[in-house]
């Protein structure tokens, strides 16, 4: 049984990358790199590089299966501790291995959100990826509290103000490298860290 205290933590900001070019999270931010929309060879190459990702959207990796073998490979051999997936059993598998499993929760409308949550394992270590992330600013308190944490807001967060607002509600957000750089510059200017 993995030690819960040894579980990796979710950084506040994940910088999205397709893995084809090295992306470094700004050192002033509590940030890591999320690889998505890539292929297996690129993921393996990036994991072995000097800027390995902290997270992977496992369903968006061409060539990689959607099963326990894939989760074990990503979290074990590639040492990527945070797994995003649409499949509840894969999120649960990642969590059971002492990592962070985040299940995509689709929030296009209130009925869809409820249905999406019906399949959530709701075990302690499986959190949620709210898609699209920007919509988290429009959820009611009861809707938010129904979403298992940690919550990663992912999608359409393109402005500094939106990023800040989403971070006040979610545990973490996904941004593009350009926005991460802006956030870092702003924080350095303010003498603070996130």
């Amino acid at each position, binding site marked *: 049984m993995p030690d819960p205290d040894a579980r990796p933590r979710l950084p506040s900001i994940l910088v*999205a990358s397709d893995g084809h070019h090295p992306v470094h999270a700004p050192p002033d931010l509590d940030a890591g790199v999320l690889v998505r*929309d890539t292929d297996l060879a690129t993921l393996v190459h990036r994991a072995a590089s000097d800027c390995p990702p902290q997270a992977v959207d496992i369903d968006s990796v061409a060539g990689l299966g959607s099963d326990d073998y894939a989760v074990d490979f990503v979290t074990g051999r590639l040492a990527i501790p945070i797994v995003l997936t649409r499949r509840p059993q894969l999120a649960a598998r990642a969590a059971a291995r002492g990592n962070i499993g985040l299940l995509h929760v*689709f929030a296009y*409308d*209130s*009925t869809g959100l409820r249905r999406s949550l019906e399949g959530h394992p709701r075990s302690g270590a499986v959190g949620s990826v709210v898609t*699209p992330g920007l*919509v988290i600013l429009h959820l009611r308190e009861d809707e938010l509290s129904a979403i298992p944490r940690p919550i990663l807001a992912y*999608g*359409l967060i393109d402005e500094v103000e939106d990023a800040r607002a989403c971070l006040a509600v979610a545990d973490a957000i996904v941004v593009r490298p350009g926005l991460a750089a802006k956030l870092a510059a702003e924080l350095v200017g303010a003498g603070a860290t996130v």
Partner: protein
Amino acid sequence: MSYVPPDAAVFIERVAADPCCAAITGEEGLDEALESRAPVIFILRGNGLTLAPLVRQVHAANKLVAVHVDLVGGLRADRASVEWLAGAGVDAVISSHGQLMPAIRHGGMTAIHRLLLVRRSQLDTALAAIGRSAPNIVEILPGVLLPSVVGMMPRFDVPVLAGGFVRTEAEVHAILSAGALGVTTSSQALWGTMSA
């Protein structure tokens, strides 16, 4: 005599005149929707195999009915189910499957292509699909985000509806100001409240 749905232009005129459309899940909320000023009732769930009586009720209230073929139960989203909905007297069909748009139009109904806003990197693909499918209307979800993302999108050649997490008059105003034809909402207090 079998029912003939109105032309898409008429459907669009009805929405333009009363931009807050009622979104219901099957029979839940039907009575309230029928009593409201909402010009169109969007059926997003329920049993797609037993819709005809419900559709007749909607028409009897001088309203139009749109059905989401991907989401109602009992139907697979394909050409045969589109024909089935045409036979039930449906006025418009919503789907995320662009390839169904020609079949919907061929059935004399208004074709509504649903665009799910996922993330920016996937927007181009979705927009290209809409370009190919040539719907009569595009519906954007979550609609409440339309004012935030309108700058990312090209101008559509067809009217836009916005649905999803639209709950206040202020949100409706913002969405209409962003260029939408109307909204679809399950918030009953908004149904038919923005009559032109």
